[in-house]
């Protein structure tokens, strides 16, 4: 499936080919520690175990303070 990733800390978005199922697995693929981010889909926060669907757009929010 194809997932669109928007990172809060970066401009624009990127499309990622994903062959597994969950938020946790796509974060692993992106080399992102789940402890450091929140994941939002359609303005709703989703958990690490939530399954993803083809053409989902995920917003990755950084939880570490910017200062």
């Amino acid at each position, binding site marked *: 499936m194809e997932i669109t990733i928007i990172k*809060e*800390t970066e401009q624009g978005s990127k499309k990622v080919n994903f062959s597994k199922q969950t938020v946790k697995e796509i974060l692993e693929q992106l080399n992102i*520690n*789940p*402890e*450091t981010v*929140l994941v*939002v889909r359609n303005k*709703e*926060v*989703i*958990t*690490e*175990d*939530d399954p993803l669907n083809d053409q989902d757009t995920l917003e990755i*929010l*950084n*939880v*570490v*303070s*910017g*200062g």
Partner: protein
Amino acid sequence: MQCTKCNEKAVITLQHGNLCKVHFINYFEDKVFKTIKKYQLIDRNDIICVATSGGKDSLSVLYLTKKYLDKYKQDTSKLFALLIDEGIANYRETTERDLKIFCKEHNVTLKVVRAKEEFNYTLDEAYPIINEKTKKKPCNICGVWRRYLLNKYARIYKATKLITGHNLDDEAQAIIMNNFKANTKLAAHLGPISGIEDYKLFVQRVKPLYFCTEKETRLYCLLKGFQVDFTECPYSQQGLRASVREMLNDFENKYKGTKQGVINSFLAVLPLIKANQIKTNESKIKNCKTCNEPANLEICNACKLKEVLTNG
């Protein structure tokens, strides 16, 4: 995923289960209020200064302090927010604007203290001069200025408590950093109530978010709809703290409860560390000979930086 307590959709997975928006907000607020009560962080007669930067931690702690005062029918007019403007271009202006809106919406007095007015230099102006002479990094200068100005102006505005937004991640990182450097003197100053002994010129610093993780705090802000700007400080750097943060997050990901374990084991020995510091008298506070503010040595760190700026 479904909330462990109801049929709603979960927004976070914690060690003890999954929570939906409503149950997470209740859990977070309850944890903060229990911390305030257990460690007696706020007294009915306190005049409370909340150190605010406009970031997620300080907005959450400001909002929750006011909510706590409302809940227990304490006088909210004794609460005010204090922002230190270090003078970092294209950074502080944004958070100051958001903070002003937040304080207006929540009916909290906001006081702003600017480094330029106190030290005659912004951080942007002071950093190249100080760095050339002392090799100090911007975060060292900023930290000294912020601690100095927060305490001085909290006291000038008659505060009896200075609330900071330090969270569980900040504290766990500080504990590990002090361990790595064998710095028990600094470790003795940690805990939900900062410092070792009362000192007349020090406003007691307290940390209501002590048991809240960075992730929980960001989620709380998001769910409450607080406007938080995530512009990174232009001086943000990858020092020891960043490495320790990454290490702790890696451990937390593999072994849930690691950060809480660091905090709990530290709190178990903290009374001994504090008692030892008092016994050895190593942390006796003096008055700075130049400005009369509290200092560990004859001259406080802020005045030492002033000297560098004036004399080179």
